[in-house]
């Protein structure tokens, strides 16, 4: 199967801090890739560079054969809107709290070209149910939703355009453990049903183990270890990965 997303020799510095240092990676369609590491490891910078939100100082990101840098601003925005999704840790930053839940979903559909009000409303209703939000809440404002519901609404608003690749930045971050399990389960089943490719940034090794096919471990902007998720976590070779794995409290 062909390579869907590829990073070649990425570098990025912020002042004297090196956020990305010679990063290479490849992923294929339908693959779930997790990037783990502690705060400051560069994992979020990597996600943003892969998603075209930050330009690297050197190196390139290639999507489906096309370098992002060659797409131009318009081409990149089209790709981001039509074929990609991005799920942020804080759903409040991604959603509009002053328009209805249905409106948040419908807005993305309209941006992707949908025009018929009835279809948009029916699709929004369907997606609310897919993320286990009562479709009676279609006209409610998200500012009255709980944190877990907001995150599920963000997932619905992201997946409604049927992206082929979704970037996720700590999607279960900031949530209660009981709510986390539900989001994880939801992401796991939707991702596999829809055959999505996912790049998932998390500091939670348990999340990576449950969702990801492959794993990248980052430290100080470098990839220190990579491989099948279970292989890296059960037989870590690098000193830092061994520390990361042994620091997890058993559930």
């Amino acid at each position, binding site marked *: *199967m062909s390579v869907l997303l590829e990073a070649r020799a990425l570098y990025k510095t912020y002042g004297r801090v090196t956020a990305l240092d010679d990063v290479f990676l490849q992923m*294929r369609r339908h*693959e779930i890739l997790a990037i783990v590491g502690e705060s400051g490891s560069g994992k979020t910078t990597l996600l943003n560079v892969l998603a075209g939100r930050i330009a690297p100082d050197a190196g390139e990101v290639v999507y489906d054969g096309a370098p992002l840098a060659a797409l131009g601003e318009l081409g990149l925005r089209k790709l981001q809107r039509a074929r990609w999704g991005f799920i942020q840790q804080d759903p409040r930053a991604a959603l509009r709290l002053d328009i209805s839940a249905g409106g948040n979903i419908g807005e993305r559909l309209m941006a992707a070209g949908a025009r018929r009000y009835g279809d948009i409303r029916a699709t929004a209703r369907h997606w609310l149910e897919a993320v286990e939000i009562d479709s009676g809440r279609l006209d409610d404002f998200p500012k009255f939703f709980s944190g877990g519901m907001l995150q599920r609404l963000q997932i619905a608003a992201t997946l409604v355009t049927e992206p082929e690749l979704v970037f996720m930045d700590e999607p279960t971050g900031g949530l209660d453990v009981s709510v986390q*399990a*539900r989001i*994880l*389960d939801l992401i*796991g*089943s939707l991702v*596999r*049903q829809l055959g999505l490719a996912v790049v998932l940034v998390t500091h939670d090794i348990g999340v990576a*183990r*449950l969702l990801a*096919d*492959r794993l990248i471990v980052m430290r100080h902007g470098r990839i220190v270890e990579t*491989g*099948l998720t*279970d*292989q890296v976590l*059960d*037989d870590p*070779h*690098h*000193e830092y990965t*061994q*520390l990361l794995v*042994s620091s997890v409290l058993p559930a």
Partner: protein
Amino acid sequence: MIMLDASDLTKTFTLHLQGGVRLDVLRDNGLTVRAGECIGLSGPSGAGKSTLLRALYGNYKVDAGEILVRHRHEMVDITAAPDQTIIEVRRETLGYVSQFLRAVPRVAAVDIVAGIAGHRAAAVAILERLGIPPRLHSLPPATFSGGEQQRVNLARAFIRDWPILLLDEPTASLDAGNRDIVITLMREAKAKGAALVGIFHDPFVRDAVADSVLHLSPVSAAA
């Protein structure tokens, strides 16, 4: 027909957090399994039985040697194959029954067993065969007893006809009745041509399913 052919396997763990201590666990180990055959791994604790089984699955990376697995009519070397190939081999050819169930928290037992293919009727049938009552099928197994969880784990493996199946103590937390059911399932798998490798502490189970036994001994420090 040879299904699995492993040779010259060497594995050393380096524990960086314990001052770089090196543990030699496998040294030139190997085994060959044919279709319809079962090999039991035996040996004292620390002899490397689990390490060998995990290496065969690509869960542990060996330092040397090769592990050839018959996948789509070709022999694929697990030690050298790209990640994507190993994922594919595990999806189609190589099954693994661990000692403990690991699953997404809220998913019902029947859905764990049915998998993404969603064979619910087959999942119900195999769960019932393993003595998991219907009232438990729609519950997530997190609250189940150890034996029940292990039987969900076994159901997840035996719902399919794996060409090769690796089993780590499949009957460890089961009573005699359930143990006998698992023996029958393993025998049926062999009759259908599956190649099995298993760690069976219970000699009764080992004698009932293993055609031969590979004895492992700890790698001596002086060697």
